[in-house]
């Protein structure tokens, strides 16, 4: 089945899978967004416990998706992995650090003799929510704005700035996506609370916070989206593989791929609809619109970055070092082998959904926190 596909088709298949993982990851950042509200919405110890536990049952999905996103990118586009991780060293290290401190915090938070104290672990969760979302947004923005690297004739990455990736966080365009992701994660976190928690105070405060966070989200998203449509992009000449700057490249891509345009617009509407639902009605189904909407929007952004003869990890410093789907991938054989494994993905998704529903049948409330044996 997969063996008959051409190398290019396999490369595209894997770019789609990696993009899908990336989009699901951004949706699952509701955990990170929610973590930034532990203090703001949890006014009492009992409320904070409810919030942490509602997120604590899901944090591993986000974490595992991040790890798998990295692993799948490594597997399918090793040159991207080598170039970006080795080059933008500080950005990835900072992201990494933000996730290291998250992994222990749920389990250790309320345990006796936890050495650093409950507050420290709650702060770790806050830092994770802040840095993790913002920096991933900044890193993904470089797919459009480019980085400053060159590959020597042996394709070893040479980063042109001593800041090794930190410079990306000072670029206003990258900042706009970083802040968009941060506020989006917060919005999703709030909608998640409304869906899963049964506590009047938490819900009321969540709705109020939703108003305050939806606005900056929409503003930063508009800045990013308009800027993206207007900016020059990194185009690839399909005949010579030469990379050149094309005005309105990403707008052209959007128009050239109507399916992506439909996904993008549908996604935007769904996110906005989800927010509106959260603001207008007491019930908590906003997440069911905003979540899938997020996946659609992020997925279409990845499509804009990599398809239609576009360099997905461009170098603004040395155009011809830019990475494309074609020049950075694994071999035909490896992509075929991996593609067989990818057939398990629907099965994996099915059991995740099954397990998720089994644990979320009932909303979390204070009573459960007192009765449950395993409480974070």
């Amino acid at each position, binding site marked *: 089945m997969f063996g008959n596909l051409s190398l290019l088709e396999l490369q595209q298949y894997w770019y789609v899978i990696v993009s899908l993982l990336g989009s699901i990851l951004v949706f699952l950042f509701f955990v990170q967004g929610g973590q930034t509200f532990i203090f703001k919405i949890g006014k009492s110890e009992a409320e904070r416990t409810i919030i942490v536990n509602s997120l604590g049952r899901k944090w591993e999905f986000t974490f595992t998706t991040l790890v798998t996103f990295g692993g799948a990118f490594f597997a*399918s586009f090793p040159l991207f992995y080598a170039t970006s991780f080795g080059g933008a060293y500080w950005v990835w290290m900072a992201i990494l650090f933000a996730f290291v401190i998250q992994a222990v915090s749920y389990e250790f938070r309320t345990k006796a003799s936890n050495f650093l104290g409950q507050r420290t672990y709650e702060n770790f969760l806050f830092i994770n929510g802040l840095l993790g979302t913002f920096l991933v947004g900044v890193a993904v923005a470089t797919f459009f704005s480019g980085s400053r690297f060159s590959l020597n004739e042996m394709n070893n990455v040479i980063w042109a700035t001593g800041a090794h990736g930190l410079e990306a966080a000072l670029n206003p365009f990258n900042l706009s996506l970083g802040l968009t992701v941060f506020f989006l994660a917060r919005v999703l976190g709030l909608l998640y609370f409304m869906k899963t928690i049964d506590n009047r105070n938490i819900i009321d405060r969540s709705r109020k916070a939703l108003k305050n966070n939806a606005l900056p989200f929409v503003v930063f998203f508009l800045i990013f989206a308009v800027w993206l449509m207007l900016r020059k992009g990194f185009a690839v000449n399909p005949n010579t593989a030469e990379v050149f700057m094309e005005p309105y490249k990403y707008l052209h891509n959007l128009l050239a791929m109507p399916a992506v345009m439909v996904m993008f617009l549908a996604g935007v509407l769904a996110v906005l609809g989800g927010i509106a639902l959260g603001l207008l009605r007491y019930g908590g189904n906003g997440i069911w619109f905003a979540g899938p909407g997020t996946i659609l929007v992020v997925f279409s952004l990845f499509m804009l970055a990599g398809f239609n003869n576009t360099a997905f990890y461009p170098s603004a410093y040395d155009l011809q070092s830019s990475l494309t789907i074609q020049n950075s991938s694994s071999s035909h054989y490896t992509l075929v082998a991996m593609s067989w494994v990818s057939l398990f993905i629907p099965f994996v998704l099915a059991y995740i959904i099954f397990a998720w529903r089994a644990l979320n049948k009932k909303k979390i409330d204070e009573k459960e926190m007192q009765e449950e044996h395993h409480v974070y």
Partner: protein
Amino acid sequence: MRSGPITCWNNLLIPEQMLESIDMSLVDWSRGQFALTAMFHWIFVPLTLGLSFIVAFMHTIYVRTGDEEWKQTTKFWMKLFGINFAIGVATGIILEFEFGTNWSNYSWFVGDIFGAPLAIEGILAFFLESTFIAVMFFGWNKVSKRFHLLASWLTAFGASLSAVWILVANAWMQHPVGTVFNPETARNEMISFWDVIFSEVAVNKFLHTISSSFLLASIFVIGVSAWFLLRKREVLFARRSTVIASVFGVITAIATIVTGDSSARIVAREQPMKFAAMEALYEGQTHAPLVAIGAVRTDTSSSSYSREDFIFKIEIPNALSYMVFLTPSGFVPGISDLVFGNEEEGYISYEERIERGAVAIQTLKDLKKAKDRGDEQSYNTLREKFNDPVWLDQYYQHFGFGYYKGRELKELIPNVKLSFYSFHVMVILGGHFLIFTIVALWLSLKNRWGNHRWLLWVALLTLPMPWIASQAGWVVAELGRQPWVVYELMPTIAAVTRLKPVAVQITFWIFLLTFTLLFIAEIRIMLSQIKKGPGGK
């Protein structure tokens, strides 16, 4: 400019250009950072691997008997499992990222092989583990008893499955098989997935690692239970836990020793330099004795490289030859045979291998030049060499040695002292574990475990030892592999990301500080949970 799909020229590291400019302190700090992360990670992983199965056994007994005491027992060990799991996850993610951040040249070189197992690990194993671990912890009152039990088993299998793929990747670095060098991309590309995952090295490495991890968890459970017995607390719980753990322990101790033995044989065949270092064997011989216990001293006077000499040693005659070849007349090469060659036994000297490796590297450079010139004829002639099995055997096989042209031969020898001691500590402790678990099982079955307080003290003192053995095993495997990241193909110095050493130093200290704090927290939480016992909440 590049043309066509994947015509990247990567990692065509040319010795005189690349390696002279490489800052050795960068290599050392990068290695130090990876070793730090890996060793911290490996404190938690083996316990997670083994304890998950022990918990699943106990959970099964509870579901079958409905005995509340078994439920408490299951929950107690499950709680310790959870604490340990969290910190294993925290240290694990760094390893994955560090391949890219600190070993980017390596990531490209091996990406075509290494990436696939890693992706499979993510898709198949990590999600299995992380999904069902949530059901396992929160499912007591939320899902059916049978589904809950299934979740415990799936968590255990998911954990072990995670270990398969990363060990396959490691095995490939030790013994690269199932791949062919593509001069177009200047990297190794996979031609047989099955050869990669079912290579003898990979299968053996997995079995040895997994069985020794199960053994480690068994000894942990016996040790913690012994503490309760010493204090005469929770006696039923402690005895039951000991029975389960000692059954598991005896089986896995035997498996560890059997797979360790075959592992040594494979190393001797595939990585003779590592094997010679493990035994500090300088002069090869037939009827080679096995050094059971010894102390080595560095002797710098006798040759072009420093040698280790024994201050004292206790040898088992013929044992080393027998271990490797199953016959005492087998010739075991020493470090000198490998470095200076031994025609009689068919070992080519390193000097010769360096020359041949340099020829392979030069061929690759010429190939690239021909391509750049558009000289199709010379290009095709050179390209053909990389398909010629004779040429590959004569020259490409020594590719990695070419990087050492003009460098000192001693750089090609791993740290002998460290390899020797680590290997012997591991083997001696392995023997102790077998005897210990047999005694524990025997007395448990006779219902006499706990009658001898000194034995409980032995159990308590044995508790940390499998960690020492397990870490020592990895030191042998990974330091003994030096100076290669991919055995005899890619040296460590060529694999490292070109960063400023100070950048790596900063992250090294940040990680060391973070890990240390989290480790202290983990130990304290563990101890306080243990003190509370199965009854406490």
